Structures are given as C-alpha cells and as structure tokens.
C-alpha cells in the first residue's frame, strides 16, 4: 500500500522520465505515445470533474473533445489557405497560434456545455446519459455532412500550430506543452475539489436535498461543474487535433465518450490522478497488445471487469488502500 500522493508523484515522475529517456535514445514514437496519453488524460480529467465530483455520468463528452478539435481545424485551415472565416455578420482571419486556438476552444466548449448542461440537467440517471449521448451524436453527424471542412474525410492541417518561443514540431517540445497544461489543470482541479464550490458540489452529488435545505442550488452547482468539465475536455480536443494535425468526425464519436469514461473507471472515479493513470494504461495496452492482436480490446474488457468487480476505487484505490469509491 502506498499513499495516494506518493502514487501521484510516481506517475508525474514517469511522465517526465519516460519521454526524456525516449528523447535521449531517439525513440520519437515513444514521445508521441506519451503525448497521446497526456492529452487523453487531460480529456478524462475534464470528465472526472463532472463524473467524480458532480456525479454526472456524461456519455457525451466527445462533444467537447470534437469542438476543441474542430476549433483548431477550422482556424488553422483558414490560416493555411489564407481565406477568411465567414461568420455571417463579420469575417475573421484563421490563426496558427496555439494560445488563441486554446482560448477559442475553451470558450466554444463552455458555451456548448452551458446549453447541453441546462437541457440535460433537467433529467437524471439513465436519461441524463442518453441525452448527453444524443448531443454527441448530433455533432458527429453534423460534421460528417459538413463538406466545407472535409465532411466524413476530416481535415488535414499541414504544419503544427505554433507556440511563442517553442518549435512545436519537435516532439519533446510539444509534449512539454501538453504536460505542463495537464499539470496546471490537475493543480486547479485539486484546489477546486477543496474549495467552497468543491464542497458544495460534493454535497450536491451525495445529498441534493440537504444542499437545498442549506440554501444552495444543486442544479446550478452541477451546471457550473459541467461547463468547467466541458472546457477542459475541449482544450484537450484542440491539443489532440494538433498532435495528429488532423481532425475528423470520429473525435465526436460515442466510442470516445466511452473511452474516457473507461480511463476514469480504470484509474479511480473521483481520484485526482485516476484519469491520468487510466489513460496511460490504456495507451500502453493499445500499443503493446495492439501489436500482438487486433482484438486487444478483449483483454482491456477483462481488466475492466476485474476492476469493476473487485476494485471499485480503481487502480488508485487498489494501490493506495483507500478503497470504496462511489457510483
């Protein structure tokens, strides 16, 4: 048994050491894998805020991931084709600047999360799952038919977007950006969980009736959590698109919503590093088992069944000995 914070430190150490080692030995593909793991972890950290703290089983977080992705795709596409983006009332220039793309991705994801959240939070339980899923599917099919930006085929961006002072085409530098963002979001997430908002949200999940009788609005608390959650996953989407220099409707697929939920369950629901550990394990298995067999998901399924049956607190709960976890 090791304490949760030592486990977390160990994970952070691994996320620093492995890419550095890969750089020294010039195994660039390992750095790309690590970048993929870190970005997927970020997407799942976003969902974990809604799912773990707020108890909101969103099966539509791919929506925000995709919005982040298409924000990058559309802005970069207009920049690389030197065309203006016509928004009806006015036109704007595209951009190849990561910070601007991130900001737009965060704002757009938040706005969509407000709308989806306000409608979805009128329901709960299985209906909440279904309605969030439905929104994701709407975006999925919309982008498939969105011919201006590649439709079903997606959209390729030839050169990775830039970050002031860095060469983002060097794998380790782009990894550094993603890693720092993940750390910053984890830090904010840890603070948020202990804040007045975090306390109230936690209570809204566990005992909405009590929350109301002390004068707080559980639905509004959950909505704000949902919006922050969507914004983080949206930011991850923008980074993911930049990693692949490609966006396609699959970013909106319900399978992706399921995958990031799987990371959380694997790692530990509501645990700060649960989604990070889940994503790292997923990407590792995907790579190594994927080399052996195309049907590697079977093994993933077995692991998932074992975790759900015997370790409800996920891997973090299992290793730190603080079992339990919640639904």
């Amino acid at each position: 048994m090791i304490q949760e914070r030592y486990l977390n430190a160990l994970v952070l150490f691994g996320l620093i050491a492995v890419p550095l080692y890969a750089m020294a030995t010039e195994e660039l593909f390992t750095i790309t894998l690590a970048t993929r793991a870190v970005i997927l972890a970020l997407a799942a950290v976003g969902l974990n805020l809604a799912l773990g703290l707020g108890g909101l089983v969103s099966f539509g977080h791919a929506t925000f991931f995709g919005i982040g992705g298409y924000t990058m795709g559309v802005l970069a596409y207009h920049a690389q084709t030197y065309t203006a983006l016509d928004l009806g009332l006015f036109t704007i220039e595209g951009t190849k600047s990561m910070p601007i793309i991130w900001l737009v991705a965060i704002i757009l994801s938040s706005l969509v999360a407000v709308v989806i959240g306000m409608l979805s939070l009128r329901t709960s339980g299985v209906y909440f799952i279904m309605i969030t899923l439905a929104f994701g599917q709407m975006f999925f099919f919309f982008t498939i038919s969105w011919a201006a930006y590649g439709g079903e085929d997606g959209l390729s961006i030839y050169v990775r977007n830039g970050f002031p002072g860095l060469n983002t085409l060097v794998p380790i530098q782009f990894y550094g950006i993603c890693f720092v963002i993940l750390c910053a979001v984890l830090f904010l997430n840890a603070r948020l969980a202990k804040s007045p908002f975090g306390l109230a949200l936690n209570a809204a999940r566990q005992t909405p009736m009590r929350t109301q009788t002390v004068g707080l609005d559980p639905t509004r608390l959950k909505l704000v959590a949902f919006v922050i959650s969507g914004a983080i996953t949206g930011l991850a989407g923008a980074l993911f698109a930049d990693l692949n220099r490609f966006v396609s409707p699959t970013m909106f697929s319900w399978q992706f919503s399921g995958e990031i939920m799987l990371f959380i369950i694997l790692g530990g629901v509501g645990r700060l590093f649960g989604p990070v550990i889940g994503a790292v394990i997923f990407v590792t298995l995907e790579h190594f088992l994927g080399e052996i067999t195309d049907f590697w998901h079977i093994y993933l399924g077995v692991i998932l069944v074992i975790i759900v049956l015997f370790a409800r607190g996920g891997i973090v709960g299992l290793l730190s000995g603080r079992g339990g976890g919640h639904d």
Partner: protein
Amino acid sequence: MTDLVLETRGITKSFGALKASDSIDFDLRPGEIHAIIGPNGAGKSTLIKQISGELRPDAGQVFLAGTDVTQQTTRARARAGLGRTFQISELAMEDTVLQNAVLGALGASGSVWRFLKPVLSDAELVTRAEEALDRVGLLDARNQRTAELSHGQRRQLEVAVALTLRPKVFVMDEPMAGLGAEGSLTMTRFLDGLRSEAPILLVEHDMDAVFALADRISVLVYGRLIATGTVDEIRSNAEVREAYLGEDA
C-alpha cells in the same frame, strides 16, 4: 397575528384518492415548541415537506415570518430562515463531520462561487461550523467521516447543520428517531434550551419527549388536525385518546 413565525392556512394536499393534508391551519409562535403528533401515515411528513418547500400544496398558503412563501423553493425558504432536519439523515456520508457543518455555514453566509481557496481555510465558516458542532457535542468527532458515525451522532449532526444556518425557525422531523433512552434525554435537554433562540416545529413519536418539551401539541389524524392545545388539554382530550394516545396515556 403578524408576529407568528410560521403559519399554514388551509394547506391541502392529495395523492390520488388519499388526502394527506386536509385544510390544515397550523401556527408557531415566538419562543415555543409546537409538536405535531399522530399515528403513522397521518400526514406529518407531508405537512413538513409543504412547509419546507419540498412539496407544493394543492391549496392553501404557507407563511414564514408573515411572508407568503407558498410559491418559493426549498432553497429560498432556507435563506429566509427555515432550518430543517430530516427524519432519515440527509448528510454527505463521504465527507467529514466538519465538512457537513461547514456546508451549512457556507449555504447561510458564504459565497459558494469560490473555486481556488480551500473552504476549510475560511476561518469564519469553520468557526461557525465548530460552534454548532460544539453545541451538539460533536466537536471531538469533527474529523471523522460521517459514514463512520453512530446513528445517534448522525442525528446530532443533522441538528448541528441546521444550527449553522442560525434559522428563525426550526422544523424538525423526528430528531429523536432511533436514539436510545439516554440519547433522547440529551436531545430533549438540548431542544429545551434551543426554543429561546428560535421556535421549533417538532414532529416526534417519542411521547416522553413531546410531553416534556411541547408548549402546544397538535394532533394529526388522516390528514386532519383534530386538536391543538397545551399538553394537559391534549392528554385529557377524549377524541385524541381514542384516535391516538390509547387508554394508558
């Protein structure tokens, strides 16, 4: 009339053919404990839920400190000074005792829209929460997880959370439920002192506690208030004896 802290006028609520509240007029004066007794299924919880805002009456009005709150949410009524405790504890079981009490303090006085500063570093909220815990005798247990508390301690925490609100009126749904003889006695003494801070609407099955505490008692049977009076009046009321108390009361 205007100095009534809590009043219902003609509260009526039906569930299908069942009239759970049948034109109930009830009031609570400053400084008193007004108990509501009645057999199981008489509609006590339904009445409380309409007063706290969890249920809307089909007809009739609820007044809190002279203001008609019938259309207001539970949340708004809590903010207007209604402190409610639940028959079955409504607590955040994964959280510590202190966190539960701080939640009450936060709802009553703090801003919940603060995202980065630890809530337990807010001295004002923590002081308010610890004062309430101290009063019910739970201060020593403040760092325990609520799930680890005994049943009796959870009942105490229920009351402590309501205390953090510093309400104008307490609405307590069976605070003695499941407490042992000694626990009931402690709670009885505590509520006895509490009435001077804010009047208490007390729904309770423990007759010893009710007779020891209540300034007035109302008897609810099949959704109707069949009698309201002092302890002695209720004890000697023939209709009440027949309906509820039994011959040995």
